C-alpha cells in the first residue's frame, strides 16, 4: 500500500481512498449503536457502555471511487476525555453525536467542535448528529438551534435513529463524499507543487490494490 500523488483520477485507476472517521460525544448518546447499525446492521436496545476505543471497517464504492472507511468508536464518559486527541489525530472526518432528548449532550458537542477546530483547524470534515429521533416526543434540543449551530461552525447536521435505521446510510455516504472532495483538493494542490510522492496529507492514503469490479446499489457494498 503505497501512498502516492496522482491526479484527480486516483480512485478510478484502481486505487482506493482510506479515510479515518472518529465518533465523539457524550456517553450514552448512541455512538456504538450508530457504528454497529452501519457496519453490521445490528441494533439492540440494551445500553452497553463502551470502555475501550475500537474501530470497525467498511468498504464503499461511491461513483466508481472505492473507499475504505475506518470508523472509530470512542468511550464517551468524561473520564476518557483526555484520550480524545489520540483518537481524533489524523482523522479525516469527525461525527459528533448528541442525544436529541438530552440538552447536555448537545453542549458537549459544542465543546468537541471547539476542541477539534482548535487542534485540527478546518482540515477535518465535521458532522453533527442528533441521534434517537425515534424518541421525537421527548426531544429537548430544538432542530433549528442544532442546525443553525452546525451551520455556524461549518459542520453538517444529520438526524438519525440507530433503532429505526434512519439517516445513517445518508450520513456516512455524505461524509465520504465530502472527504473525497477534500482529498481531491489536496491532491490537486500537491500536483501543482512538487510532484513528490510519499508526502500525502495527514491520514489520506491512496492505496494501490488490485482493481476489482465492485457493483453496488446505493453506493454501499
Amino acid at each position, binding site marked *: 500500500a503505497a501512498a502516492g500523488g496522482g491526479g484527480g483520477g486516483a480512485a478510478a485507476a484502481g486505487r482506493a481512498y482510506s479515510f479515518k472517521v472518529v465518533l465523539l460525544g457524550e456517553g450514552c448518546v448512541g455512538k*456504538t449503536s450508530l457504528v*454497529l447499525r452501519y457496519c*453490521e446492521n*445490528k441494533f*439492540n436496545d*440494551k445500553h*452497553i457502555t*463502551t*470502555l*475501550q*476505543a*475500537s*474501530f*470497525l*471497517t467498511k468498504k464503499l464504492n461511491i461513483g466508481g471511487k472505492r473507499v475504505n472507511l475506518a470508523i*472509530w*468508536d*470512542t468511550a464517551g464518559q468524561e473520564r476518557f476525555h*483526555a484520550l480524545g*486527541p*489520540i*483518537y481524533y489525530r489524523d482523522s479525516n472526518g469527525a461525527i459528533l453525536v448528541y442525544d436529541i432528548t438530552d440538552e447536555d449532550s448537545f453542549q458537549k458537542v459544542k465543546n468537541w467542535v471547539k476542541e477539534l477546530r482548535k*487542534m485540527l483547524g478546518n482540515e477535518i470534515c465535521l458532522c453533527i448528529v442528533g441521534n434517537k429521533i425515534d424518541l421525537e416526543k421527548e426531544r429537548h434540543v430544538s432542530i433549528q438551534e442544532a442546525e443553525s449551530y452546525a451551520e455556524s461552525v461549518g459542520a453538517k447536521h444529520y438526524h438519525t435513529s440507530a433503532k429505526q435505521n434512519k439517516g445513517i446510510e445518508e450520513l456516512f455516504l455524505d461524509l465520504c463524499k465530502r472527504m473525497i472532495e477534500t482529498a481531491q483538493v489536496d491532491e490537486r494542490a500537491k500536483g501543482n507543487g512538487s510532484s513528490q510522492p510519499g508526502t500525502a496529507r495527514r491520514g489520506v492514503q491512496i492505496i494501490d490494490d488490485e482493481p476489482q469490479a465492485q457493483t453496488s446499489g446505493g453506493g454501499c457494498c
Partner: protein
Amino acid sequence: MPGIDKLPIEETLEDSPQTRSLLGVFEEDATAISNYMNQLYQAMHRIYDAQNELSAATHLTSKLLKEYEKQRFPLGGDDEVMSSTLQQFSKVIDELSSCHAVLSTQLADAMMFPITQFKERDLKEILTLKEVFQIASNDHDAAINRYSRLSKKRENDKVKYEVTEDVYTSRKKQHQTMMHYFCALNTLQYKKKIALLEPLLGYMQAQISFFKMGSENLNEQLEEFLANIGTSVQNVRREMDSDIETMQQTIEDLEVASDPLYVPDPDPTKFPVNRNLTRKAGYLNARNKTGLVSSTWDRQFYFTQGGNLMSQARGDVAGGLAMDIDNCSVMAVDCEDRRYCFQITSFDGKKSSILQAESKKDHEEWICTINNISKQIYLSENPEETAARVNQSALEAVTPSPSFQQRHESLRPAAGQSRPPTARTSSSGSLGSESTNLAALSLDSLVAPDTPIQFDIISPVCEDQPGQAKAFGQGGRRTNPFGESGGSTKSETEDSILHQLFIVRFLGSMEVKSDDHPDVVYETMRQILAARAIHNIFRMTESHLLVTCDCLKLIDPQTQVTRLTFPLPCVVLYATHQENKRLFGFVLRTSSGRSESNLSSVCYIFESNNEGEKICDSVGLAKQIALHAELDRRASEKQKEIERVKEKQQKELNKQKQIEKDLEEQSRLIAASSRPNQASSEGQFVVLSSSQSEESDLGEGGKKRESEA
C-alpha cells in the same frame, strides 16, 4: 577631611632625591588606588550585569505566563481560572520587569559611567605620564652625562654647543613632564574620592527610585490578589495531600491484595471462576498460522464490545474487530501442546480463531463469557442474573447422577469431573471411545432431570449400556457405496432412491422428555454445548451422515464401517439451530429404552459444515419418500390383486397374439418397458438427479420385493 599630601611642584626643577622619594610614595598610592578601584569596578559591574539579567529574566517570565493559554497541554488544557490568574501575574511581572529595566539604565548612567571614567581615563593618564616622565628623566640623565664629559679644549665648539643644547632641551622636558605628573598625581587624590562616592550615590538613588516605583506598582489590590492565590495554593496542597494519602492507601491495599495475582495461574479455589460474565478484557495469545505446519502466537489485548470480540496490540490506539461472536461457538481445544487454549468459531463457520489464556481461571472465564455473549445473554435486562441462571442449569447438567456414577464406577472412577481422560479416540471410533455420562436438569423441563449426556458415539463393539445397545442393531456392517448388495437386509442403503452424504461431528446425545416440538432439539443443543464448554470436552468424532429413505447412518469416514444406524421411522423430530446453521439435531423415539414398556426419546446433536438446513431438507425428503413408498406399497398390493385376475384372462389371449406381434412390436415393447402404470405414482417425487434415477429404479424393485415378502 584631613589635609591632602601634595607633591611640591616648585621643587621639580631641583629634583632632589627627597622629591623623588615622595614621588615614589605617590606612585605606590596610585597603584593601590588602581588595584582597589579595579576590584570595585568589577563588583559594580556584576551588580549591573545581574540587574540586566534580572530585568531580562523577569521580562521573559512575564512573556511565558502570557503564553500559557496558548499552550497545548494534553491534560487540563482548558483550565480558564488558571490561565486568567497567570495573565494577571504576567501583567504585574511585566511591570516589575520594566522597573528593573529602568533601574538597569540608571545604574548604567549613574554608577557605571563615573567609575568607568575614573578607571579608563584618570588612572590611564597617570600611567602614561609615569612612562613619559621616566623617559624624560632618562634622557636628562644621559644628556648631563655627556655634558660632564666635555673637554677643556676650546677646539670642539660645535660638539660643546650640541651637548649644551641637549641638556637644555632634556632638562626642560623633564621639568615640564614632572610638573604635569605631579599635578596629575595630586589631582588623583581628589578624583579618587569622587570616583568612590559618585557611583555609590548613583547606585543608591537608582535603587531608591526603583523601590519607589515598585511600591507604587505593588499596591494593596495586588496584595489581595496574592492572598487569594495563596489560599488557593493552600487548597491545592491540601487536596494533593489528601489525594496522596488516598493513593498511598490504595497502593498499600493493592500490594497486599495483588500478591497472589502475580502468580500467572492462580489457585482456582482461592479465586473462583466467574461464569456469569458478559464482558471481559485481557491479554490472550492468538495463534496465527504462518504456513502449513508453522504458526506464531501473538500476545494481544482482547476485549468484548457488545457482541464483538476486539483485539488490540500494545502500541495500537484502538482495538479492531477480531470476530463477531454473536451466535458463535466456543470450546476448549488442544493446540500445539499449549495449555489453556480455546477455539471460537463464528456463527457462519467461516472464521475461527484459536486463543490461549494465561491461566485456568482466565481460560474458563473467557469460554464462559464468550458463551454467554454468543447466547446473547448480554442483551438481557440483567445479564449477570440471566447468565447465572443459565449457568446454574448447565452446572447441574454436569453433576453426575448417583445411579450413573455407580454404573460407571468400573469404567470411569471420576465420572462427571471436569477433565475427561485424554486418551485419543481411535479412528474407527469403536475402541477407546468415551462416554462422559453426565446428569442434566432442564431449564424448562423439556429435557428430563438426571439425564446423562453422551459425548461420543458408542459403537456396538464396546457397547456396555443396555439402554442403547438394542437401538443400534445395524452397527459394524460395512456399507458399500457402489451399490453391490451387501446382504438381503431390507434397510440396505443401496436399495434406497435417496442417498445423501454429509460430514458431521457428533457433539452429544441425551434422553429427552418430549419429542413434539423443535424446542427440545434447541434445548438439547444448548445443554450439550454448555456442558462441553464447562468441562473442556472438545473431542468430536467425525462421521459421514448418510441419509436414505430407510435410515440415517453414521459411517466411519476412513473404514466405511457403519457406526450407528437410526431407522427413519424412529426419527420423529429433526431441526437445525435457528441462528447457528452448523448445528443439527434429531430425536429418535425407540421402544427399546431402559424399560421395555415405555417409549423413550433420545436427542442427538451434531455439528456440520454449515449444512444444518441441507441435512434437514434431506431428512425431510427421505421421510416424504418413505411415506409415499408406504402409500405406494399399499396401493400396489391392491393393484396386484387386480392384476392377478387380469393376468389369468389375458394369458390366453397373449399366447395367441404373441407369435403374431412378436416381430412387429419388438421395438415398441422395449420402449414401453418403463412401466407406465408406475410412472404416475413415481412422478410426485422424481426430484432426484439423473444419476440417481437408476437407483430409484432399483429402490422401486426393492420395495416390490419387500411387499411380496
